[in-house]
């Protein structure tokens, strides 16, 4: 009975995934039904305006401006827009002015359908003009910051692109800073982001597909990938997963990530994100798919491999040997951040012979005054550190200095002097914490895993750590990201060029095998320089000047 509840829950969760694949198509039908029940557009301007205002709930920032145009002001129309979301110059110069200054070329009045066509194609001066015949589309256009032009007597309206609102400018991303490399970061505006990526890859193969997700937020989501390089099966899978989403809101790419990821119960994320266009461009070039979400500067890339957490953009801009050294340090740092507290607990409680004798005396002296077992000490320190970290993100800037001093003092000296924790424990946790920041995208998984590892370490010492490690390996081995095995680069000997070391760029001539299909070569192999500066040229110079000085 005790386990019956748990077993039933687990069984439900594992079998649920199979059920929902089969019933995925039912969502589409509902929306079609809805569309058929909506209000139709009519010829009367007054009616249309009334219906439009109803759909938009008569908000106070909805502006309706009635105008009359035509050579004899015979046509009446209205422009509808949301104040604050449009670009006023475009509205006046692109729409109102040409409209109101329009003189008829032909003598007859054009009839209704023709009128809209003429307006769309000959009169309105804007970058995008679309003719829509459904009120919901017109309303959606308003909500996006476009202006709707309704003409009396026409069954339809024009949706004109006048988007303009306050945007953040392109600045250095706060979460990924580099010493060497471009300092542009994405912004919250979709078009800016896609344009940033386009500017990196100026090739016709870069394809962009747009989808709208979220019932109430109607967020635009763009997929960008290299056609002919990205695996078409993965592209199709991503399209399917996003288009089948029946959710209410998408506020950030993290929402999309949670909805489309392969392993929702794993601490490791199978979808990667980045705030820098050069990073995303590099990933697209390797055959991955970028998912740009409107309203957030974080762009997702799929599929993700474990090794990507250890690769930063800067790796590719500095020299290969140094980059390889940094890569190895990052691996060691991740290992430290997950296992250091566990190993410390194991050494202190079980394997005293591993500690050199002199150090053992120090530890013994440090442990004399402290009341808690090592495991509890470690938990306290880790908890305190997590509190500090979170506080550091949330605290208001003026108070920042004072709090950080207090934090350091409390954690450091005072805790040790008061006898709550021992000095070696403080050092261990400090290194653990700092090492966690070397691998930024795995910081959260590292924090969780280190607590999990501490439990078998406290019970079984290094054997417990070993089996915890093995368990983690087994879990990582079973993870897949959109069909690509998560640990691919370690088991596939051919792709080792970019894992533990960073091979020089002139040696990486093939794309990673698991991700891309199609064109796999990136370039030809050579060892620089292409042509050694012909030494005889120098010698001629030298000879003229009387020998090398």
């Amino acid at each position, binding site marked *: 009975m*005790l386990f019956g509840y748990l077993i039933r829950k687990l069984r439900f969760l594992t079998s649920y995934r199979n059920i929902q694949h089969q019933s995925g198509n039912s969502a589409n039908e509902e929306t079609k039904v809805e569309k058929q029940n909506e209000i139709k557009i009519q010829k009367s301007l007054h009616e249309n305006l009334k219906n439009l205002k109803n759909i938009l709930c008569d908000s106070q920032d909805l502006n309706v401006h009635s105008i009359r145009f035509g050579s004899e002001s015979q046509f009446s129309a209205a422009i509808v827009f949301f104040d604050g979301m449009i670009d006023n110059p475009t509205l006046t110069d692109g729409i109102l002015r040409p409209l109101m200054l329009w003189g008829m070329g032909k003598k007859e009045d054009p009839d209704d359908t023709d009128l809209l066509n003429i307006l769309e194609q000959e009169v309105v001066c804007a970058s995008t003009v679309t003719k829509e015949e459904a009120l919901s589309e017109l309303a959606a256009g308003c909500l996006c910051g476009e202006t709707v032009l309704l003409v009396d007597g026409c069954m339809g309206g024009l949706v004109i692109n006048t988007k303009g609102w306050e945007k953040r400018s392109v600045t250095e991303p706060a979460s990924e800073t580099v010493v060497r490399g471009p300092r542009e970061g994405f912004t919250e505006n979709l078009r800016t982001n896609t344009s940033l990526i386009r500017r990196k890859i100026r090739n016709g193969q870069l394809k962009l597909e747009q989808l709208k997700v979220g019932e109430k937020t109607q967020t635009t989501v763009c997929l960008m990938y290299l056609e002919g390089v990205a695996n078409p099966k993965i592209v199709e899978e991503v399209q399917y997963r996003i288009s089948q989403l029946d959710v209410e809101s998408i506020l950030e790419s993290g929402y999309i990530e949670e909805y489309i990821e392969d392993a929702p119960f794993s601490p490791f994320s199978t979808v990667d994100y980045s705030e820098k266009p050069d990073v995303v461009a590099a990933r697209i070039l390797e055959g991955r798919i970028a998912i740009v979400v409107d309203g957030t500067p974080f762009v997702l890339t799929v599929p993700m491999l474990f090794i990507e957490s250890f690769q930063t953009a800067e790796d590719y801009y500095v020299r290969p040997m140094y980059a390889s050294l940094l890569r190895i340090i990052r691996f060691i740092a991740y290992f430290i951040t997950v296992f250091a507290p566990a190993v410390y607990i194991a050494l202190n*409680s*079980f394997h*005293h012979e591993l500690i050199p004798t002199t150090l053992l*005396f120090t530890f013994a002296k440090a442990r*004399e005054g402290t009341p808690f*077992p*090592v495991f509890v000490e470690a938990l306290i320190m880790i908890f305190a550190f997590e509190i500090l970290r979170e506080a550091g993100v949330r605290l208001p800037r003026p108070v920042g200095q004072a709090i950080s001093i207090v934090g350091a003092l409390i954690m450091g000296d005072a805790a040790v*002097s008061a006898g709550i924790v021992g000095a070696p424990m403080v050092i261990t946790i400090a290194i653990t914490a700092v090492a966690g920041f070397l691998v930024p995208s795995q910081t959260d998984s590292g924090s969780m895993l280190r607590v999990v590892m501490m439990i078998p370490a406290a019970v*079984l010492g290094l054997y417990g750590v070993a089996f915890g490690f093995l368990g983690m390996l087994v879990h990582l081995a079973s993870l897949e990201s959109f069909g690509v095995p998560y640990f691919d680069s370690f088991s596939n000997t051919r792709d080792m060029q970019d894992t533990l070391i960073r091979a020089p760029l002139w040696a990486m001539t093939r794309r990673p095998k698991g991700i891309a299909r199609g064109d796999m070569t990136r370039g030809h192999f050579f060892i620089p320089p292409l042509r050694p500066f012909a030494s005889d040229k120098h010698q001629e110079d030298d000879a003229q000047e009387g020998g090398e000085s």
Partner: protein
Amino acid sequence: MITKGKRIVALLLIFMMLPGLLSGCWDSREIDKLFIVTGIAIDATDDPDQVDVTMQIGKERKGEAGLGEAQTGGSSTIVLNTVNDTIMGAIREFNRNSNRKLLLQHNPIRLFGIEVAEHGVKKHIDLFLRDQQARLEVPVAIVEGRAADVLTGTLDQDPLSGMFVAGLLEDLSKVSVELQVRMLDFVSRLLQETVAPMMPIIAVVGEEDKKEIKTVGMGIFKGDKLVGRLDNDQSLGYIWAMGDVSQFNVKVQEGIDKAILHVSKLKTKREVTISDDGVVKVKLSMEGGASIAEMEGFGNMTPQNLIPHLKDLAQEEMKQTVTEAFQISQGLNADMLAISATLEQRHPKKWEKIKDRWDEIYPTIELTVDANLKILGTGQIIQSLEMEEAMK
């Protein structure tokens, strides 16, 4: 409202956390509940069945950075002593009578009193081989007198005398591996009955407050009983014969003239021949490079004459010492140079025949020693102040 399901899950979680929190795990030991053993001494008692076990527990190392507290006096060791049937019994007694458990893994030295060595050490070694906490690379030594004296005395150099002795032997091992006898080496020789195990002998000298611990030679065992010894000079002969010695001095003396040659490396080759009727001959050839370390006298020689002269003297000296040491071992009928092992390895068939008569054959073995020293340098100066000018 907490539903039944949630309560059960909460209980499960608590049960899982308990082992870690209460540290009720079986093997877990906090460091402050341990006694770190820094020396074990075995002595004989009046009752031959009982053994006197002394353990030195270290509390802290001298010169630690702590938190600024000065050492206010009081010793930094605890010495535990008891008499028991077996060593394991003694350990259990210590554990039972204190609030801490003994940690044997850091123990750097095992000492045997000279009486124990003379009666036989085999029965005391079993624990050190069998116990999971005991280590094989720990050196062993005999103490002149009672082994416990080494552990109870305090030294200026190191408050933990056990670690001091271990360090002493460690330094000696850099001269020659044979000077530091590890448990493994001792047992290896013991298993082979015809080879004589050896152990260094140390002694405690000095007054109560100013004690010093020194090495006074090597002890020769036959089987597991101590039968004889070599003093420090004769031990030199022993290690030269075994070979692979580095950084030692040879003293030569001619009348009042003395010279010390510093040899950086000495290698010894041995040839063991056995004839069909069991006559064994051993030939040792030693080779090394030396330099003059210190000189006194030799005023009537030039540097050119001096070097070959010194060389002859040194070679003679070395041969003498080796032969002397070997004769002592022949007198004790203990094969300290492991000649029988070499015989078994190189001439196994002939060894089979004579192995039962080894005790009779050993005293009759002929040893020829050949030494070849090259004098490579003379230090910073070429001639000493007392010598004639070479140019004159």
